[in-house]
């Protein structure tokens, strides 16, 4: 148990980390190069990287990797934007007007336990499978955290501030834009980060099922063609883009928190 509070020097940490990565890639590489695992089951790391680089400019399943990613990111942006446009004001209003809270909460609770991907059939039926359908699926994944973040933010506001503003006769609209919104910002931003992650995940799911372009579609096609290398290259691409999106949001979160006087991005 002493090891729990063990302080490791930075170099020890780096060395141990490299050791871990070496084991990981060592097992992977050894398994595939020695032929212990067949290359359709486990292609070696280098051939996966090679595949990834090749996909960047040579088309697979109709498009190059960059074209697939562009299609995916476009849907993703649209779905996330819709979740923010609907979820943010609704969450704030729920935090502010009790009646709206009382009306929306039962509906929200009723729908909350339906996994986002279960919306795929209706989404495809209502809005088609190219843009509208996937956008709805991304929306169902990203909407709850946006709403909850805004709602929590609105409820966390200093009651004395509200009291003071009320006493001075501030109208509802100005209360919302000038007191609630700025005070709720940190909570809203954390909600957005969760939403971005869940939205990206829902997008991949939607593309695996209904779409005819995008990174998820490319992976399904590769799976049908038993091209394990391409599937793995797709997984890496998805991970990289997800990381980039999260990094951007983290930078944005830090900037917003500094602007509104709250220290540092949350973990």
């Amino acid at each position, binding site marked *: *148990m002493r090891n729990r509070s063990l*302080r490791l020097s930075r170099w020890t940490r780096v060395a141990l980390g490299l050791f871990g990565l070496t084991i990981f890639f060592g097992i992977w590489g050894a398994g595939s190069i020695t032929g212990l695992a067949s290359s359709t089951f486990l292609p070696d790391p280098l051939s996966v990287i090679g595949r990834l680089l090749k996909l960047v400019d040579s088309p697979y399943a109709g498009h190059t990797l960059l074209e697939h990613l562009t299609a995916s990111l476009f849907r993703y942006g649209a779905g996330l934007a819709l979740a923010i446009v609907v979820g943010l004001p609704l969450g704030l209003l729920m935090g502010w007007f009790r009646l709206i809270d009382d009306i929306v*909460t039962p509906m929200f609770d009723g729908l909350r336990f339906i996994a986002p991907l279960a919306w795929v059939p209706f989404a495809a039926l209502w809005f088609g499978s190219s843009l509208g359908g996937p956008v709805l699926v991304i929306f169902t994944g990203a909407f709850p955290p946006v709403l909850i973040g805004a709602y929590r933010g609105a409820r966390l506001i200093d009651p004395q501030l509200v009291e003071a503003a009320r006493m001075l006769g501030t109208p509802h609209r100005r209360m919302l834009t000038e007191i609630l919104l700025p005070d709720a910002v940190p909570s809203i931003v954390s909600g957005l980060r969760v939403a971005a992650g869940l939205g990206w995940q829902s997008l991949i799911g939607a593309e695996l099922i209904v779409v005819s372009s995008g990174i998820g579609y490319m992976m399904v096609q590769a799976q049908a063609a038993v091209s394990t290398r391409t599937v793995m290259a797709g997984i890496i691409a998805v991970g990289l883009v997800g990381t980039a999106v999260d990094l951007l949001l983290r930078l944005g979160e830090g900037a917003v928190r500094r602007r509104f006087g709250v220290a540092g991005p949350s973990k």
Partner: protein
Amino acid sequence: MPGRRGIVAVLTLTVLIVLWVWATGPGGIISPVRFPSPSLVWEALAQISTVGFGGATLPVHIVTSVALVVEGFLIASGTGTALGLAMGWDRRLAAIINPVFQLLRPIPPLAWIPLVILWLGLGDSAKILVIWFAAFVPAVINTETGIRDIPEHLIEAAYMLGTPRWRLLWRIVIPAALPTIFTGLRLSLQASWTTLVAAELVGSFYGLGHVLNEAQQSIYPGMIFVGMAAVGLFGWLTTLLLAIVESRVLAWHPSVRELVSA
């Protein structure tokens, strides 16, 4: 005596149901090809309960999905909690595993589905592996955090009193980390449902995702509705079950009181 909240909730649901009946029936605003009327939902429910749909009756699909979620969840949270314990326990182990973990973590669990199908096909083991990818991570992270955040003085005190190692683990470390561990378990359970439904939609022989897929292929809105309702209902029931377990296990902990009242 129901409070104001309860009354508004009942009113809201009544209005929604009336709107639904009216818009899909006499109002004629929503075409039955887009969204089913209550009677069409009832027909679909009757069909899947008696004749069956997508190769089996509703109970078979439900049992298939719920069993997979529970198995996947138990395996993932068991292994995840164990690894989290070990990582929280020993910083050196954490330092070895963390980079690999950080490397794989940004990959959305659903992205593993095509690879897992290549590895294991469309059977139960494939579904459990996909769930494992999704539910393992929250269990590890929250368990590790829970153990890291135990106040140092608790452990120092136990040491000073000469508490043996295993007793320390069972009586102090695990109980102190349990609230955080349960936070992870709730996330894991949610992730299990999301990935299972997705995996079943991509390819399966039975299960609620399979019902949804078949209903989509044959443009059968009533059946889509039944499938979604079943996913929501059983997602809710399993979450409720976990909450009951949590309140039993953590009965001594002050946070449970908040949880019960919330």
